[in-house]
């Protein structure tokens, strides 16, 4: 009679009663905090951060121990991993909150109308005024130019890959887009620096910066557009063909409008990403204290390079400017980013 004896070895339903319920776990946590407080009051242990770390480690040990004794090894391990997973989330949220709140806290000190409407010309190293007007102009012009090049080009390439590409040429174009995806931003800047700025003797300019940003944007635009175009159901194309529409009109009037919300999201994320790029701009548009409204000639500061150069100068006033500009940059990027995400909700296409 082996079957009944096997059943006897398995836990019965009654064992469920011996579970570590939420109120018990809360009590354990309270107890851990209390004991830790006593320890921090009476021993050399000190510091707020230390306290939190201490409590977390202690609670992990206590809960695992109690669970092991009460519920057995399986549940103890399960609870430990569950705790670790939650801590992992905390490990991401803490730096995010820290970066954002510290930037807001430091940046608000200097970010005002004066800062937004002045550049850095005519200032001595000890002056604390001046602003990022010229950098805002630079960022706007460079990002707009890059978008104006990368979006139409990227869209055409995406259409080529999904709708027309055949054979080795399509494979080669796909490969190049894949390669571009992995180009580090500094290398993109170096390309343009070597090829355009010094190679063709064009010098630093906003246009050169836009070229380097285009290299970074293009693969993102192509990839996201490609993915969205592929999601347009074949039935819609067939319905369009069945109405007697040629392929190009089907693509322009049916496929692209259907995919447009997704394509716009992808494009805005790409724009948000390049708006924060610093490294390629250092090598292509460089830095100047003056406002340069010409997008095609002469050095032009952008917000990221403004921050970088201010940090390099290293005086408190410079740091203040850097924080204020960092706040501006974060606001711009986050607005782009969040509106792109909100737009995703309007997306009628979903992956199956």
């Amino acid at each position, binding site marked *: 009679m082996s079957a009944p004896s096997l059943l006897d070895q398995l836990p019965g339903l009654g064992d469920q009663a011996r579970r570590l319920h939420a109120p018990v776990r809360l009590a354990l946590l309270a107890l851990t905090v209390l004991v830790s407080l006593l320890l921090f009051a009476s021993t050399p242990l000190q510091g707020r951060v230390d306290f939190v770390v201490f409590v977390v480690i202690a609670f992990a040990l206590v809960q695992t121990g109690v669970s092991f004794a009460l519920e057995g090894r399986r549940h103890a391990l399960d609870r430990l991993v569950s705790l670790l997973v939650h801590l992992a989330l905390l490990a991401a949220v803490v730096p995010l909150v820290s970066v954002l709140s510290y930037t807001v806290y430091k940046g608000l000190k200097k970010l005002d109308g004066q800062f937004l409407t002045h550049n850095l010309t005519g200032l001595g190293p000890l002056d604390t005024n001046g602003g990022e007007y010229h950098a805002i102009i630079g960022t706007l012009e460079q990002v707009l130019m890059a978008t104006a090049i990368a979006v139409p080009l990227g869209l055409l390439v995406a259409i080529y890959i999904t709708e027309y590409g055949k054979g080795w040429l399509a494979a080669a174009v796909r490969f190049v887009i894949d390669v571009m995806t992995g180009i580090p931003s500094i290398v993109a800047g170096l390309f343009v620096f070597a090829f355009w700025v010094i190679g063709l003797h064009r010098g630093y300019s906003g246009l050169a910066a836009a070229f380097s940003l285009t290299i970074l944007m293009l693969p993102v635009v192509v990839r996201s557009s490609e993915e969205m175009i592929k999601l347009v*159901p074949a*039935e*819609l*194309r*067939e*319905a*369009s*063909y*069945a*109405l*007697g*529409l*040629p392929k190009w*009109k089907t693509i322009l*009037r*049916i496929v692209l*409008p*259907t995919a*447009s919300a997704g394509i716009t999201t992808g494009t805005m994320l790409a724009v948000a990403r390049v708006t924060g790029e610093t490294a390629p701009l250092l090598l292509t548009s460089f830095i100047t204290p003056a406002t340069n409204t010409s997008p095609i000639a002469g050095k032009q500061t952008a917000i990221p390079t403004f921050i970088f150069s201010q940090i390099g100068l290293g005086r408190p006033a410079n740091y203040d400017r850097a924080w204020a500009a960092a706040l501006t940059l974060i606001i711009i990027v986050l607005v782009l980013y969040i509106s792109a995400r909100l737009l995703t909700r309007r997306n*009628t296409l979903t992956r199956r």
Partner: protein
Amino acid sequence: MSKRIVAEDVNAFYGSFRAIAGVSLTIEPNTVTALIGPSGCGKSTFLRTINRLHEVIPGARVEGKVMLDSEDLYGAGVDAVAVRRTIGMVFQRPNPFPTMSIYDNVAAGLRLNGIKNSKVLDEAVERSLRGANLWNEVKERLAKPGAGLSGGQQQRLCIARAIAVEPQVLLMDEPCSALDPISTLAIEDLMTDLKQRYTIVIVTHNMQQAARVSDRTGFFSLEATGEPGRLIEIDTTEKIFSNPSEKRTEDYITGRFG
């Protein structure tokens, strides 16, 4: 405006796989012809050779002749795009364009073929929606998205979209298989109206439907999986369902096969 279709020895391929072989048949104007048969027998594929939609699938090709009155649709110099404008199609699942309103869906074919006069469009939209028995239900909300309609309404919207370009033939690929019985009935009634003006070919899995709506019925079948589908016989619907010439047809109709 309704025309006769004559298929002569039509073979359709997906890459090297032959999906249908040697189909020859005649479809008379102003009739409803139903194509029935077991799954995978090539009836939908054959339907898609009539408006040259088969060839948009990569690797797919067609051999043989399909005549629309005296013109060979696969003749040299014939543009597939023009063929599809002449021959309308309604699909298995309703597929209105999701980014367009009801009005725009119906007007899509005309607009994209270059008609911009809003008066002409208004008239055509109303005429087509009336033709598809949908006008009364949607006339108050022409600007609303077509995707907001019920499944049966969406399918009638697709019929309106197809007839708006004034085709000579209307192909229907299992148009009711995704619909409830009441919507199905509405579409079947509509077919009887539409055949006054169009030649209609309908693929259906539903033999009762074929018996209800069609004048002539063609039976497709295949010897075995992997073999091409063939037209076994085509005759008046009455004859097919009461006294078919082929044993295989009878087996299928009476439920002994498929």
